[in-house]
């Protein structure tokens, strides 16, 4: 009995502490993700206050967090939006992929982490945080801006890329051979295509399967379906996260909206646990040695996302200021970088330094992303006025 009491106290303290951190984060206008990570670092391995006795709960909660993160990502976009988004933004999406995956891969290779480490770090630096980006765009009142659809369609492309990337990564982390890897790639591509077609044509049947007028029945069905699909796809080595993501895409219309509303609080809870667990499993003492690399990587990938946004917006005929805004909006990295790093760390197939590097990198980018989105316009205006003044001064 004593153990249960202690576990409850520990869990309560963790959740309450996260609540305080979250409040603080929204107050100063940043995403709570970095604070959750810091919270996790403070406890656990090598932290100031190790937690014991709740590992069983936190471990499965973290898994649930990943499944819910990806399920809600899938629910966010309908299959039709994904297809039109892909058609509209594939060129910008490819620029995004090349520019932002390369820095991560190069750094991993330079650190001698091998091709798998490179693939992991490529994913970590590539994917923007759609959660942070959407929140920042809404907060800054930029949803009516012309460059916003450009930003959103780049995010759509990234999400589709994730659906292909995650199964490949999972297979490689599990140590399958080259031929096996190719088979997985094939299976992944076929599955994604089949799910998109099914969602486009028969989305309402999938929706009808989980839909129910009673909220609690609906919640149980959606969550049950998500865990079943996640578990089965994990068994087939297609990654639990991708299964949940594809289920999210297949559920459409008002069912998707209701599911989002019901599941959002659950996702926030379990995702918070996931970030904390990731922080818990990272030794804070391992961060200072990789901090320099993380800062360099942050600087480079801020520049590459700015370039991505610039080109993507330019393709749609957006003026210079809008191109800068689009670039800065994309800078934030967050939940999905940690999801990728988490998969890699859990498999044990990558270097020990990867978790601290990914943590430090996401800490920097999740804090800096929203700040960049906010300051880019005033800074650009200031720079232009300065240049104009200098030109005027040169003439007189």
């Amino acid at each position, binding site marked *: 009995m004593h153990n249960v009491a202690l576990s409850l106290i520990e869990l309560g303290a963790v959740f309450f502490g996260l609540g305080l951190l979250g409040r603080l984060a929204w107050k100063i206008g940043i995403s709570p993700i970095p604070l959750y990570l810091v919270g996790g670092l403070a406890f656990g391995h090598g932290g100031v206050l190790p937690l014991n006795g709740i590992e069983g709960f936190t471990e499965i909660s973290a898994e649930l967090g990943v499944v819910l993160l990806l399920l809600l990502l899938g629910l966010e976009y309908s299959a039709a939006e994904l297809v039109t988004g892909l058609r509209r933004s594939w060129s910008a999406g490819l620029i995004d992929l090349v520019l932002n995956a390369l820095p991560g891969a190069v750094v991993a290779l330079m650190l001698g982490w091998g091709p798998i480490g490179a693939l992991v770090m490529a994913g970590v630096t590539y994917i923007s945080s759609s959660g942070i980006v959407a929140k920042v765009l809404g907060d800054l009142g930029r949803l*009516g801006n012309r*460059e916003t*659809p450009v930003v*959103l369609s780049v995010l759509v492309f990234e999400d589709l890329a994730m659906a292909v990337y995650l199964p490949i990564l999972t297979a490689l982390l599990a140590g399958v051979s080259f031929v096996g890897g190719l088979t997985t790639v094939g299976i992944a591509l076929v599955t994604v295509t089949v799910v998109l077609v099914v969602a486009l044509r028969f989305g309402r049947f999938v929706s009808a399967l989980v839909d129910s007028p009673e909220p609690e029945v609906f919640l149980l069905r959606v969550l049950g379906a998500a865990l079943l699909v996640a578990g089965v796809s994990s068994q087939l080595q297609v990654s639990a996260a991708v299964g949940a993501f594809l289920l999210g895409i297949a559920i459409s219309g008002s069912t998707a909206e209701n599911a989002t509303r019901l599941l959002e609080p659950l996702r926030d809870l379990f995702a918070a646990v996931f970030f904390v667990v990731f922080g818990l499993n990272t030794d804070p003492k391992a961060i200072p040695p990789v901090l320099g690399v993380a800062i360099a990587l942050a600087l480079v990938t801020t520049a590459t996302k700015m370039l991505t946004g610039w080109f993507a917006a330019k393709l749609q005929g957006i003026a210079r200021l*809008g191109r800068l*805004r689009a670039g800065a909006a994309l800078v934030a990295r967050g939940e999905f970088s940690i999801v990728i790093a988490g998969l890699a760390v859990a498999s044990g197939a990558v270097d020990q330094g990867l978790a601290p590097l990914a943590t430090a990198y996401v800490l920097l980018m999740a804090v800096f992303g929203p700040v960049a989105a906010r300051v880019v316009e005033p800074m650009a205006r200031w720079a232009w006025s300065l240049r104009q003044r200098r030109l005027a001064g040169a003439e007189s």
Partner: protein
Amino acid sequence: MHVEVTPLPGIGTRQDFQTRSGRRIGIVSYRDGRYDLIVSKTDDPDACVASIPLSPEEISTLASLLGAPQLVNHLERQHAEVSGISTAHLPIAPGSRFDGRTLGDTELRTRTGVSVVAVMRAATAHPSPTPDFRFAGGDLLVVVGTPDGISKAAERLDRG
């Protein structure tokens, strides 16, 4: 008028158009039924100077404020092309004969041949009122008929 409809994946849609003065005006409609009224900046047409959240109720108020005069103009333009038919606004004065009575009570159609196509009340248009539509003082009737019929109708509504 060309209204541009742009999907915002994961959020909703943006519908806007360019005014003659070069500003972009429109709405962002969210999937959950919320709306933002958006107005573009003058110096940077890509960005918005305002993005104002509006409830469905506020949206319909704004729509009727903009739409009521529009309806009369529209009718006048339409009937200007048909010779011998004109459009007019006839008020129901507070305390007058038909204040508090129904459209059927006025017997406008039988007596004057004039049709009431809409009733404007508090900046809201009530189009195609039925015979049991009850007038209130201050209502403005939008009527269509011959000039002769309209003057008879005006007389009938004024009298008493």
